[in-house]
C-alpha cells in the first residue's frame, strides 16, 4: 500500500471535468484506491496495488478513470513515434558498470509547466524513487531544463574528489565527497554509495554537470522552474527493466500534460539484457494472447467480442483479433501484466464488480473440523461447568511479561525485528497470560476462576522449524481461601470426564457407599520443585505415566512481582492434542 497526495483541481483539469467527492470515491475503486482524507483541494489517497507504480500520481489515476474510448492512441509509444529519427544520445562510460549500471532518459517539449504540474512532477519523482525504487537504491530520477543541455550527455564514474559543482540548495562548488558529507540529501542517501571508490556523474558534452545520481541535481541545469517548457529527464538504477518502466511512466505523464516526447538513445559500452543500444521511451514488445472463452470461463459471463475490445481500449491496451483469439499489448507504462488473468481483471473492473450477478456455490463436499476441535470444545464445556470464566489472550508478548512462567525462558522463540519490546517473543506457556489478567483484576469481584485454551509455541530442536505450536489448557483460581486442593479437584474431575473408557482404581467408597474423594487422576501427581511455586506444593501431572503438565500454588514472590493480592493456584495441561486425541 502506498499513500499519495494530489490536487483535486489538477486531477479535474487532466480529466477535463469536475467531480464530486462521492463520484471520486467510486472512481478511485477502479484504481484500487481509497480516498482517506480531503483537505481543501488536497486529496489523500491510499493505493493498494504495489505492482502499479504508474498509479502513484495524478496523471496515472486520471488515465485510468477517464474512461476514454481511444486511450490507446494517447500512448507515448506509438508506431509513428518509433520511426522518428533519433537526435539525442546518452553515452554510458564503462566505469559505471559496477556502481549503478543503467540509465534511461527522454526529452519532453512544449510543456507549460504550471505550479501544480511542477509540484506533481516532484511528488511523482519522489514516490517512484522512494516507494518503487526502494529509497533511491534501485531507482532515482533527475529532471532538468533541457534548453541548457548540449547533447550527447555522458553518464560516467568519477573519483569522489575529482569533480566539483554547485548542488541544489547550495551556493558554492563542492566535491562529490563533500556533498555526501554536507548536503542533507547527500547525508540521507550516502548509504547507497557506501563502499564504492567512484561515484556516478551525469554531464553534457560541454562538461556542465547535470547531476550526481542518485543524490542531487546541479543548481544550474538541474533546477526546474514554473514556466520551463522543455525538460530532460534521466532515470538511473540497478535494474534495467525497472529503469525503462519508470522512464515510460514519466514520459507518459508529461505527454498526458501536453508535451511532445522526444526519443533518446542510450549507448552502453557493455552488454545489457536488451542489447547495447536502448531507445527510450522503451517498447517492451510484450503481447499476450487470450481467447474469448478465457474471459468467459474465469468471469462466468457470456460476452460480445466488441464489448471486450471496447473495454480493453479504455485501459490503454492495443487489441487485435484473429480466429476468436485476442492479441493484446499492454500500454507502455505498465509491466504488471504477467498473465492473461491480469487483463481479464482489468476487463472485470471496467465491467463493474457490482454489475456481476453473484452465483450460488453448488459444489457438494462434506464439512469437518480438525481432530483437536471436539476435544477443545469438550474441555471448554467442562471448565465452564466447573464455574470458570474463559480468557482469550494474545500470543505475542515480552520476556519480562513471562514472570512466573512454568516453562524455561531459554526455550522461548524470539523475534528478530520486533516493533517494540512489549511484543517480541511468542509465549511458551499460558500461565503468564492468566497471571497478567489477575494482576489487573484485583478490583474485580472474587472468587476468580479463569481458564484459557490456546496456542503456545515451544522450541523443539528435533523438528524442521525448530519449534512446535501446541494447544494448552491452563486454569487459575484466586481468592482469599484459594487452595491447592480446590484446583486439584477441578483437575481430577476434568481428567475423569476426558478419559471415558479408562478404568479408575483406588476409589474408596465411604460408609454410605458414596465416593467423596477424586474420581479420576488424583493419584497421578508427582512431586516437583519449581521456582514459580511454593516448595512442596507443586506437582507434575502424569497421564499414562508421562508428565503432561504441572499444578501448583504460585510462589508469593511471583504474586508480589505481579502485584497480585490473593493466593493463586494454577494448572497447565500441555499439548492437549497429544494427551487427548487418539
Amino acid at each position, binding site marked *: 500500500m502506498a499513500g499519495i497526495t494530489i490536487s483535486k483541481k489538477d486531477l479535474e483539469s487532466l480529466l477535463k471535468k469536475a467531480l464530486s467527492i462521492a463520484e471520486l470515491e467510486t472512481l478511485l*475503486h477502479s484504481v*484500487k484506491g481509497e480516498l482517506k482524507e480531503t483537505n481543501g483541494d488536497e486529496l489523500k489517497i491510499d493505493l*493498494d496495488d*504495489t*505492482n*502499479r*507504480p504508474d498509479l502513484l500520481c495524478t496523471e496515472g489515476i486520471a488515465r485510468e478513470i477517464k474512461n476514454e474510448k481511444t486511450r490507446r492512441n494517447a500512448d507515448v509509444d506509438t508506431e509513428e513515434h518509433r520511426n522518428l529519427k533519433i537526435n539525442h544520445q546518452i553515452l554510458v562510460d564503462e566505469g559505471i558498470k559496477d556502481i549503478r549500471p543503467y540509465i534511461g532518459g527522454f526529452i519532453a517539449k512544449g510543456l507549460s509547466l504550471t505550479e501544480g504540474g511542477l509540484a506533481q512532477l516532484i511528488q511523482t519523482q519522489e514516490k517512484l524513487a522512494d*516507494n518503487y525504487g*526502494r529509497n533511491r537504491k534501485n531507482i532515482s530520477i533527475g529532471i532538468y531544463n533541457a534548453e541548457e543541455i548540449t547533447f550527447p550527455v555522458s553518464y560516467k564514474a568519477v573519483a569522489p574528489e575529482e569533480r566539483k559543482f554547485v548542488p541544489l540548495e547550495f551556493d558554492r562548488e563542492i566535491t562529490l565527497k563533500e556533498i555526501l558529507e554536507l548536503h542533507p540529501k547527500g547525508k540521507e542517501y550516502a548509504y547507497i554509495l557506501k563502499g564504492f571508490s567512484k561515484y556516478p556523474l551525469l554531464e553534457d558534452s560541454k562538461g556542465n554537470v547535470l547531476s550526481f545520481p542518485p543524490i542531487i541535481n546541479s543548481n544550474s541545469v538541474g533546477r526546474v522552474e514554473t514556466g520551463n517548457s522543455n525538460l530532460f529527464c534521466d532515470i538511473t538504477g540497478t535494474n534495467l527493466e525497472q529503469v525503462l518502466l519508470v522512464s515510460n511512466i514519466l514520459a507518459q505523464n508529461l505527454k498526458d500534460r501536453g508535451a511532445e516526447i522526444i526519443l533518446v538513445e542510450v549507448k552502453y559500452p557493455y552488454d545489457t539484457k536488451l542489447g547495447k543500444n536502448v531507445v527510450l521511451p522503451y517498447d517492451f514488445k510484450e503481447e499476450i494472447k487470450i481467447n474469448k472463452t478465457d474471459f468467459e470461463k*474465469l*468471469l*462466468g*459471463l457470456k460476452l460480445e467480442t466488441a464489448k471486450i475490445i471496447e473495454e480493453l481500449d479504455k485501459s490503454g491496451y492495443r487489441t487485435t483479433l484473429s480466429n476468436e483469439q485476442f492479441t493484446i499489448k499492454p500500454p507502455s507504462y505498465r509491466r504488471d501484466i*504477467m*498473465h492473461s*488473468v491480469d487483463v481479464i*481483471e482489468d476487463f*472485470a*473492473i471496467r465491467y463493474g*464488480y*457490482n454489475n*456481476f*450477478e*453473484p452465483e450460488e*456455490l453448488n*459444489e*457438494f*463436499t*462434506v464439512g*469437518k*473440523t*480438525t481432530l483437536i*476441535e471436539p476435544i477443545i*470444545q469438550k474441555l*471448554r464445556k467442562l471448565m*465452564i461447568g*466447573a464455574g470458570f*470464566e474463559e*480468557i*482469550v*489472550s*494474545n*500470543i*505475542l508478548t515480552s520476556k519480562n511479561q513471562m514472570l512466573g512462567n512454568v516453562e524455561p525462558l531459554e526455550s522461548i*522463540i*524470539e*523475534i*528478530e*525485528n520486533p516493533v*517494540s519490546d512489549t511484543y517480541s517473543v511468542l509465549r511458551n506457556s499460558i500461565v503468564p497470560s492468566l497471571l*497478567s*489478567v489477575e494482576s489487573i*483484576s484485583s478490583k*474485580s*469481584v472474587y472468587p476468580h476462576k479463569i481458564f484459557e485454551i490456546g*496456542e503456545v509455541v515451544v522450541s523443539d530442536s528435533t523438528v*524442521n*522449524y*525448530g519449534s512446535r*505450536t501446541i494447544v494448552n489448557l491452563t486454569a487459575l483460581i484466586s481468592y482469599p481461601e484459594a487452595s491447592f486442593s480446590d484446583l486439584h479437584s477441578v483437575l481430577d474431575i476434568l481428567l475423569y470426564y476426558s478419559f471415558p473408557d479408562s478404568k479408575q482404581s483406588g476409589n474408596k467408597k465411604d460408609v454410605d457407599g458414596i465416593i467423596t474423594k477424586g474420581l479420576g487422576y488424583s493419584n497421578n501427581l508427582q512431586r516437583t520443585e519449581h521456582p514459580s511455586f511454593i516448595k512442596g506444593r507443586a506437582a507434575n501431572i502424569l497421564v499414562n505415566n508421562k508428565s503432561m503438565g504441572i499444578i501448583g500454588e504460585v510462589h508469593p514472590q511471583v504474586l508480589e512481582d505481579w502485584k497480585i493480592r490473593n493466593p493463586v493456584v494454577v494448572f497447565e495441561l500441555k499439548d492437549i492434542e497429544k494427551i487427548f486425541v487418539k
Partner: protein
Amino acid sequence: MIENILNELHPLEIKLLKENITSADKETCISSENQGPANWLQLKQLIEITPQVKTTVHLTELGKKYLAGTPEKKVIDCIKERHSIKITDIDFLDAEEKKDAIKFLKSYDIIEIQAGGILVLNESTNLEKIEALQNLIKDADKSILFDEVDELKKSLVNERYKERGKTRNIFDLTKETTYLIKLTEEGKKVWEVVQKKDFSTDEITQLTPEMLKDGSWRTKHFREFSFDIKPRRILIGRPHPYAEFINEVRAKLVSMGFCETRGGIVETEFWNLDALYMPQSHPARDVHGVYFLKSPAYAKTIKEEEKFINNVSKVHKNGGETGSKGWGYEFDSQQTKRLILRSQGTVMSARALAEHPDPPGKYFTIARCFRPDAVDSTHAPDFLQLDGIVVSESINFRGLLGLLKLFASELACAKEVKFTPSYFPFTEPSASLYAKHPTLGWVELGGAGIFRPEVTAPLGVKVPVIAWGLGLDRMAMMALKINDIRDFFSRDLETMRYVNT
C-alpha cells in the same frame, strides 16, 4: 395492606424493628451488620436511611515529629530569639522543610526577606495560624473529629492533608460511615404492630430436611417473601464471547461443507510468501511486513517443500508452464527457508492445496496471524483471520462473489454488501468485500479472488481455485453489532463480565 407487609418481613427485618428501634420518633444509629435488612426496609418505604460520615484526624509519622514544633514555628521562634536570621544560617531544618517553611511564612506576610537573605518578622505579624497549627497537632495526637474543629483548623487540616505529597502530610484522615434510620409514617404503623406481635413459634423461613422428616411443617406457617428485593449477585463460569463467535463461524463453515485445517504459527517464507507468488525482492512483497525469527533463523531442510520448490522457483523466474512471464528474477533457495511468523491465513490455503490438489475441495482455517504494525486501537499484536478456498472445475468470479455474499449474510449478519477491486499478489481478479454496519457505515470485511495460475499450477492444481480471507474482528463487530472491538478484548475480569452480546 399492613397485613401483607407483615407477612413478608424477614426475620432480620423483624429483629431490626424490634430490637434496634426503640422509639417510633427518634432516629436510631445502626452498625454496618444491620445495613442489609435496613436497605430492604428502605426499599419497602418503611424507613429512611441517612448515612453519616465521621472523619477523624490523626497524626502521621511526620506529624508526630512536629509535636515538638513545625518548621514554621521553629523559624519564627528562632527569629524572635535573635530578631533576625540569615536563611543560610538555618541549620535545624532540612532543605525541603526550609524551603517550604519560608515559602509559607512569606505567603502569609508573616516574615520579610531583606537584602542578603535576612529574615525578619513583619511588624503587623499575626501568628494566629502558626499557633493554631501547633495546637491542632497537639490535639490530633489524641485524635479529634474533623467536624468539631473550627474553620481555620479545618482549612489547615486540608492544606496539610491533601495538597502535599504523601510523605509530607502532617495529618491523616480516616472516614467511618454510620447510618441513621428513621421510621416513615407507614413504618411507624408496622413498627407498632411488630412490637406487640410474637413471631417466634409458628413461622418457617427455610424449609429444612428435618421438617420434611418429622412433618412439623404441617403445623407451621410459611413466611411470605417479598419479590421487590434484588437477589444477590453470583459469579458463573462463562465462555468468552469472542471464542463463542469464532465457534459459530466454524460451525457455519462446516455446515456449508468446508473442511478445517490447522497449522503452526512459525512458517517458512516458502509457504507464507513464495508459494503465494509474492516475489522475494520486489515492491509487491511490501503489501505487508513480516516478523522474522531470531533463532533458529532458517528451517533445517526443505524436504516437505521439495516436491514444489522447483516449480515455485520457475514460476517466479519466468512463469514456468503457466503462460505467465513471471517476476523475472533468480529465486533464492536459502531465503525461502527463512523462518517467520505466519502473516496471513492464506498460507494455510497454499498448504491445503499442496495436500489436496484435486477437485472438488473446500477448505478453511482460523489462523492467528502476526504483522509488525505498531499496536494501537485498530492493530492488535496478533489477530485471527478466517481464510479458505474452493477447488472446483466450475468455479468462477461470479461464484466467488456469490460465496462472499453468503459469508457476509451468514457470518456477519450483513444485509447489504458491495464489492470493490482490490490487490493481492496471489489472486487475479481480486475483490474486497464491504458490508453495511448499522452505525459505522460501510465496513471492509475482507479480501478475495481467484488464485493466479502461478499459485495453483506449481502445487499441482489444474482447476480454478477461489480464495478468501476475512477479518474475524470486523465480522464480530458486524454480527454482534458492537462499535468498539476493544471492550471485547479487555483483560480486566470485571469489564469482561459486563460484556453482554
